[in-house]
């Protein structure tokens, strides 16, 4: 009777021990350091203003990502169209919104009233309709959703396009040879198989958006970062309040990563099902 003994992994153990020491040292020097203001962190962690900032950040991330995915899907399909006009429109959109800083886009939407004082709602080139003051139509929140959503759509369309291109062309041909129209083949056969490729970078984008959305502080929207900024501008507890914001960003990122792994598992079903 042989007893099999796996090779010992001394290197791993030594590294783990060393790491533990480093972590303990840093943990002690941070937790035990009064300058970090842990009491203040704790005091503001569940502050009503911080929580309402957090909820705006989460809401903005969700809404702009939904817009981004919808626009991204539409523009990805347009960019792959055989119709030159349609694909050029999509490429121009992607070129413009990826080519300009999102911060500038936000400010632009927020100040749209300075460029177009009134917006005409009705049938173009006729008198049928009404002119409305732009500043009534574009509130800071609309400007934020427009700015972030349109920008996200450009990035998402490239992600979705790469997913669609990764599906073997034979899949579409088989669907078409069975009598499906191009559109049906896209929705029922190609897109579902592009999902495993699209999801990881989309998760990345969502997590990125969580933090990019903090740019809305320039148009006076009190998201998570802006709300802690307003608090520390009065009590000067800058570092503790930034730690509060970071802790919440970390919590939100953790939750999003968990959701992403669940979605990935769902779409990976057909790959490693073992029936």
């Amino acid at each position: 009777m042989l007893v099999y003994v796996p090779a010992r992994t001394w290197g791993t153990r030594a590294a783990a021990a060393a790491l533990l020491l480093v972590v303990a040292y840093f943990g002690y020097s941070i937790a035990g350091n009064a300058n970090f203001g842990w009491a203040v962190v704790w005091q503001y962690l569940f502050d009503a203003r911080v929580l309402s900032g957090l909820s705006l950040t989460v809401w903005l991330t969700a809404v702009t990502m939904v817009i981004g995915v919808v626009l991204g899907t539409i523009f990805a399909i347009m960019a792959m169209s055989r119709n030159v006009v349609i694909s050029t429109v999509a490429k121009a959109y992607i070129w413009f919104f990826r080519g300009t800083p999102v911060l500038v886009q936000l400010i632009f939407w927020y100040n749209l009233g300075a460029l177009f004082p009134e917006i005409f709602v009705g049938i173009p080139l006729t008198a049928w309709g009404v002119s409305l003051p732009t500043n009534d139509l574009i509130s800071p929140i609309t400007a934020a959703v427009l700015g972030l959503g349109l920008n996200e759509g450009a990035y998402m369309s490239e992600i979705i396009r790469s997913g669609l291109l990764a599906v073997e062309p034979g899949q579409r041909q088989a669907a078409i040879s069975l009598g499906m129209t191009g559109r049906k083949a896209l929705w029922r056969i190609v897109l579902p198989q592009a999902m495993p490729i699209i999801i990881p970078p989309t998760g990345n984008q969502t997590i990125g958006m969580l933090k990019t959305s903090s740019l809305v502080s320039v148009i006076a929207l009190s998201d998570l970062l802006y709300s802690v900024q307003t608090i520390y501008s009065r009590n000067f507890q800058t570092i503790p309040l930034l730690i509060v914001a970071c802790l919440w960003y970390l919590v939100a990122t953790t939750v999003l990563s968990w959701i992403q792994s669940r979605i990935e598992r769902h779409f990976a079903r057909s790959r490693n099902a073992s029936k």
Partner: protein
Amino acid sequence: MIVVDRVSKSFGKLPVLRDVSLAVSPGEVISLIGPSGSGKSTLLRCVNHLERIESGSIAVDGELIGYRRVGNHAYELPEKLIARQRARIGMVFQNFNLFGHKTALENVVEAPIHVLGVSRREAEERASQLLARVGLADKMHSYPRMLSGGQQQRVAIARALAMQPKVILFDEPTSALDPELVGEVLDVMRALASDGMTMMVVTHEMSFAREVCHRIAFMEGGRIVECGKPAEVLDNPAFERTRAFLSRVQ
């Protein structure tokens, strides 16, 4: 059943089909053989309008494929009508092209439900009969990547049959298979042939062409060089080019 009349096509400047004519009668099994690049697969793909033809015409069951003729103009049909024509022309690919995110059963019911509008229950009932017919009753709920190449190709044949096609086009159906799996696919095709299915088969399996096919068409350089009964073409070819090709593959 299939009438190919003086069809020509080129990819850019390269002519791939030159004035090809061929008529396949109902229940006939015809195989297209020839060196690679001879236009066999392109001809097959023109029959269900996966490729556009540039002159001539192709008709299946009396219906012009892909175009509507008015006077001396042929107008390409709208996508929906072409899709309707394709629904009755089965196609089996070299690489199977089973839908990777669907089980064998789901692959077979997909088009009957979403193209023909058959109820799910009816489609599944018929699909399980078809899968049993190709010897895969126990693999209904397997995903393609869990199946061998031969099994995948048999699912693909069942998927084509589920649309109750008038003809089935086979594009090198055994070329991507390990040698020991070729037989099981050819057996299914042989059974289809004896059931009277009209089939057009691009193949390199000379023994299959000889045993099962009613006629063999030898193509080279975008032309049908000769076409006739298997014994004539394979054993007593009229053209030197056919003889040269056969001596290389046999």
